[in-house]
């Protein structure tokens, strides 16, 4: 069993992800999705022990392995670009883990080198059979097709029977037909081996096809908080240079209003408020949400936190039944909304409280017309 508790990673100062807690039962396959750049690969490298987490712990079978070096963890990783050893043959690659692992060496000493080698060869042959490459055992890995190389990478990872298998975009870069075939093979192979699997992909369809459960890494950044927690950031960011000093909105009191936020440690660094309301002049019976008070701390503007808040909020609104989302966007924020699929409606207006120029922006949710 794999347990991740409060994992966080950064790229320099920028938050990659935070508060990732996840429990993968023995034999379960869990997929992690999210667009590129959200730290999916980093998460796998942390679980494998190739990189230390910024904070949080990794436990395997109840034991904290956060400080255990990679080569003692028995966690297998299929790299996105295979990373086959160019100086070894196909069989050499698949047998590598059996040859170098500490456990294997102890076993070899006990049973005698000859028998160790015989068992190893048998295991390599078995793995090559499983991935259908028995005929390529002696081939040099730089003369493999993309699909063959991927199979060798999978066989190499599974050969030493790791406690957990990590798959980093295992089907990327393959043509559609090969993608389908390898997906089916991978499903059979992983189910048959009964290992615990963490599977990273940007493709939700692939995630659903392979995994028992799908986790959106980006959604893990965003949490719902109480109104009091977001007021400081709203005051700092939104009311600057405007006549009103009160960061509260009339809609804050409504029972359906939700405040979403991203934290860095205890401090809230981004927030937005989601109000259940139709836009002016629209059919009030069509459920809709208004995005209000989007605020990102000055120092964290470059990290794309606003986009994460917006996308996660839209997803939740969609699940909650909203048919469209809208906002009164300040002119300076117009581009941000347009980049996230919003369209501008009408000519724009001057907002009565702040006296700043605004535009009405709308994005439909799901497939229904607004």
């Amino acid at each position, binding site marked *: 069993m794999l347990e991740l508790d409060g994992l966080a990673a950064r790229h320099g100062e920028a938050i990659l992800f935070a508060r990732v807690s996840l429990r993968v039962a023995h034999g379960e396959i869990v997929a992690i999705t999210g667009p590129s750049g959200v730290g999916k690969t980093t998460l796998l*490298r942390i679980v*494998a*022990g*190739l*990189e*230390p987490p910024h904070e949080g712990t990794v436990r395997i079978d109840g034991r904290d392995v956060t400080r255990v*070096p*990679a*080569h*003692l*963890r*028995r*966690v*297998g*990783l299929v*790299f996105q*670009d295979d*990373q*086959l*050893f*160019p*100086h070894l043959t196909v069989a050499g690659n698949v047998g*590598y*883990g059996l*040859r*170098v*692992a*500490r*456990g*294997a060496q102890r076993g070899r000493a006990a049973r005698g080198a000859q028998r160790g080698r015989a068992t190893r060869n048998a295991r390599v042959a078995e793995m090559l059979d499983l991935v259908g490459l028995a005929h390529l055992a002696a081939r040099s890995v730089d003369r493999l097709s993309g699909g063959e190389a991927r199979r060798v990478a999978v066989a*190499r*990872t599974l050969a*030493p029977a*790791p406690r957990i298998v990590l798959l980093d975009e295992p089907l990327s870069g393959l043509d559609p037909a090969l993608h389908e075939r390898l997906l089916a093979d991978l499903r059979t192979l992983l189910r048959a081996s009964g290992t615990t699997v963490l599977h990273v992909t940007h493709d939700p369809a692939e995630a659903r096809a392979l995994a028992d459960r799908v986790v959106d890494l980006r959604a893990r950044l965003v949490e719902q908080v109480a109104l009091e927690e977001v007021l400081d950031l709203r005051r700092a960011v939104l009311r600057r240079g405007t006549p009103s000093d009160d960061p509260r909105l009339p809609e804050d009191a409504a029972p359906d209003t939700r405040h979403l936020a991203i934290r860095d440690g205890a401090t809230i660094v981004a927030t937005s408020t989601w109000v259940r309301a139709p836009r002016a002049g629209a059919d009030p019976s069509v459920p809709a949400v208004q995005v209000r008070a989007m605020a990102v701390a000055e120092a964290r503007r470059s990290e794309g936190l606003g986009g994460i808040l917006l996308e996660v909020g839209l997803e939740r609104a969609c699940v909650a039944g909203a048919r469209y989302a809208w906002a009164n966007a300040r002119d300076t924020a117009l581009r941000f909304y347009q980049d996230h699929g919003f369209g501008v409606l009408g000519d724009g207006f001057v907002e009565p409280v702040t006296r700043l120029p605004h535009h009405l922006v709308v994005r439909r949710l799901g497939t229904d017309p607004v």
Partner: protein
Amino acid sequence: MSAPRAVTAAPRARATALPRALVVAWPRALVVAPPLALVALGVLAPATALVTRAATTEAWSRVLGDAETWRLVAVTAAQAAASTLLALAIGTPVAALLAHRRFPGRRAVRAAVTLPFVLPTVVVGAAFAGLVPAAWRASWTPVVLAHAWYNAGLVARIVAVRWEAIHPWIDDAARTLGAGPAARAASIALPLLRPALASAASITFVLCFASYGVVRVLGGPALATLETEVAFRAFVLGDVPGAIVVAALQLALLAALVAFVAPAVAGRRGARTGPPRAVVSRARAARDARERLAVAIGTAGAVALVAVPLAALATASLRVGSTPSLAGWRALADPQVRDAVGVSLRNAALAAALATAAGLSAASAVARARRPWLDVVASLPALVSAVTIGLGLAVGAATLPRPMRGAWWLVPLAHATVALPLAVRVLVPAARGVPAGVRDAARTLGASGARLWWTVDRPLLARATAAAAALAACTSLGEFGASSLLVRRGSEPLPLLVERLLGRAGDALRAQGFALAVLLAATCLVAILTIDGADARGGRP
């Protein structure tokens, strides 16, 4: 003739076919002439002169039948092997540091570790003469240390380039499969680096095997290698046939090494793998306290390693005997020093011009006209030791009419021959880096032949040309082996003067020699900083 070319040209071009054929066809044939001429003059003609005029069967049987010759072979090989192993042991960790870690001053460290390699061998010898205790003088220990010192940077650079081309996640893959640090070094790093280690080792071995300046300065008359034996027989004993046999023996041994031993060491893959592709450096900053400590120790170690012998040299120049004194520096006002500087600068300018011109045409021939054999020919002088080149030219010149013997152009010619392989190594990759599309575009705009070269190749190769010229000038300034056999009294270049001063008994003369060595080192330092500066600004393709 130009007829077929004119026929295959587009019909509209027929009217201008003849002049165009003249412009296009002639330079293509002639482009190989300068490097061939230089190699012919500097290597082949002297070799012919040696073989035809001087080598007698009597000399062959006398030298090869002498047990002393074979003892020299063993000693020469043993000191070269020890030097090579030490250079690898020092250079490989430095390569790991440069290839894998990003840290403040990385570029400076890289330049610093390469610095010893461009220093004149006489300066290297002088630095270690200033460093080691007097009791060690005239023993092999300082010679091996000096050899390892100036080759370690070369090893570091060759190995680092290869290491950077290996994706760090290959190592990560081995880690996730259960390989510990020792297992990864043995099963991943070593096999993947083997071609680079082998080529670094063979270059270092060849250089140490044929080393002359370091052995002369540190060993004096007490230590002998095949290379010093050539000079000794030719100069002191006047046994030119014997010297030629020893030179030929040395050449044969080195050629066998490069042709048979080095490829075997590099392994089957080494032979098959082409030059490393251009790679984005994946070096990363140190992540935790342990890694930061390792980087700090590595950086400090590398810098100290380079700095200590140079500091010893500087200190030695500021002392007469054991008392601090500026006498050594004051003595540089001496007219013989002024003359030597003049001679050296003249030699350097001529040699740089010759080697760069020949290197440029060799590079364009290799890169564009598909004459890869020229690369090999232009690299020939690297295999022939400097003393042998000098001996060949001296013997060859003796066949010329009397007024031309000992002519002033013999030394720069020898220097240019020695520098040609270096210039070619810099210029060929640069010429290969000129995109064919750009040349085609210029052609469609009407440029051809010399104008095409002048308007497209020349500006694109400007930095590499400057680097090659600086390297050639640097080589000439420090060249010792060939000069020592060719120079007549009164036109002594700097390295010879340094060696003569350091070889004298008086402390004041030694101080002067050390001061002159510092001056020579500083000149070469400026040259390498120019080269590295050009590299940093994108001069490397």
